[in-house]
């Protein structure tokens, strides 16, 4: 009997863990014009892109402005930024985490290259 209970508990744990592992998190609000990154422990996250001269890194001087494309962290640890209002066009972007680490948007399957890095693409028709 003890063995059956143990096996049942293990199966229950695996199912529960599996649900937590592979069931997607719900978005806080339905908004098409926001970028999201789940990184609660990061000290800062910026969006560097063609629309902001990659944070100033391609401008004269080449220093990334620490406030350029700064994302806001909500209470749950989700970093967000509103990108509505950009002119129509194709833009490459990447997340700049903790002031030194570039990562592409894991929730965007479309990618391109910038300066040898794999970055993400977003398009606005108008």
């Amino acid at each position: 009997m003890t063995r059956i209970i143990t096996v049942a508990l293990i199966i229950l744990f695996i199912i529960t863990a599996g649900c937590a592992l592979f069931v997607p998190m719900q978005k806080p609000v339905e908004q098409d014009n926001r970028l999201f990154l789940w990184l609660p422990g990061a000290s800062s996250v910026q969006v560097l892109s063609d629309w902001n001269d990659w944070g100033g890194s391609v401008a004269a001087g080449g220093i990334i402005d620490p406030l350029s494309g700064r994302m806001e962290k909500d209470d749950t640890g989700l970093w967000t930024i509103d990108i509505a209002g950009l002119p129509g066009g194709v833009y490459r972007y990447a997340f700049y985490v903790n002031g030194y680490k570039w990562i592409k948007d894991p929730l965007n399957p479309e990618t391109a290259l910038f300066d040898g890095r794999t970055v993400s693409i977003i398009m606005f028709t108008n």
Partner: protein
Amino acid sequence: MSTSLITLIILIAGGTDSTDVSIIPENWVFGYDCLIDASACGDWINNHPVIDSTSVDAAVSVSAVSPEVNFLVTGAMRNDSTSHVVLRRARGVVKWPGTPWIAAGVYLNDQQPFIAGLSNPVLEWGWVDIDSTKGFGVSSGGVLGFSGDYLIQLTSGDTLSQLNVHSPWMGFAGVDYSRARIHPADSEGVDITVNVLSVRGDFRYFKPWLIVAGAEGEEGKWAVSAELRELRPIDTQWGRIEIVPGMHFAGDNIDLPGSAFVPGQRIITLGAFLESRRYFVSAGIKGMLDLSSDSLSSVSASAGMISEGGITWDVIFGYYADGDYRAYVSSTVSDSYASAGIAVEIIDDSTRVTGSASYSPRDDVCAEVSFSGDIDDSLQPECVLAVTTSLGPVMCLVGIEWEYDSSPSLRMNLTGLFK
């Protein structure tokens, strides 16, 4: 820093506080900021840190903006051998408002040519050295929503001219035309001209995008990219699936300063992308068929998700016609104080595993460590330890990197923007 710059800042700061008679008009907005970037690099030798290079870069910017004027001056100093203060960037634009509006401006290290493509750009950043450009520009707009600008600059002795014309969004389409030409100072240089027409349409059920690029000179200097976007056979409240057919053709002699086109390419593409409106999940698959040769034919797929357990998944797979392949799987579990992740990347015969962990004792501090190595005979591990802080506009990094068969290297960086 230059005394004159600091004096100018003090004058402007005092000027905004004037409540009596002021020389500053009411509709002007003044701003100033100071961007500082300091770093030091070195090695860890015999149990002691040894710094072998340092750099300090400080830039002070002063701006004044009104409906008629846009003025920016950035002075900078770097601790090189001269330590001179330089005028890094400047812009002065005067605008005559109305319909049509007209503007004219002078620029120093401020206007860099860039033309986007459908994925990679037709004209990439850095085509010219931004620190060597100076020129004059005019712009106009307001007639039926059209706008345009013409800019002529001197860059490293060559002449760079740019023309951009933008149409308004006409309900179903928008058109942009860009032309960039670099005329070399000497006869041995290469005269490059790039013409790009970009058309975006919206026909309700799909949105065609077309980019036509051409360079002047001999035959075969043309390129065309087209995609149909937002063709959505499935579009529900849960999410949508978008089918994206596309083509990328280029002449045999095209040589654009961007990565959008390869000479002689004949490529057709078909992609399908899933995006959820309610959940953090997405996926995509894209096939590329190279009609001219099989060298660029490939199939790639990717998927990403944030799970309820706070795990970020990122999966990428690519297979190329020449037999090469790449697979990447990353999983990171995060909460408010700590995170841990593992990533496996397989490129042909090489398999690299990266493990990472971070700890955040408070919101603005993060300590990270990552370890990676190839799973083969050599392993050749690498280890990175970094502590970062972000206190408002000031960011600090202290890091140690260690690679197999070499001594650890140190990196310290402090960047701040003060307004």
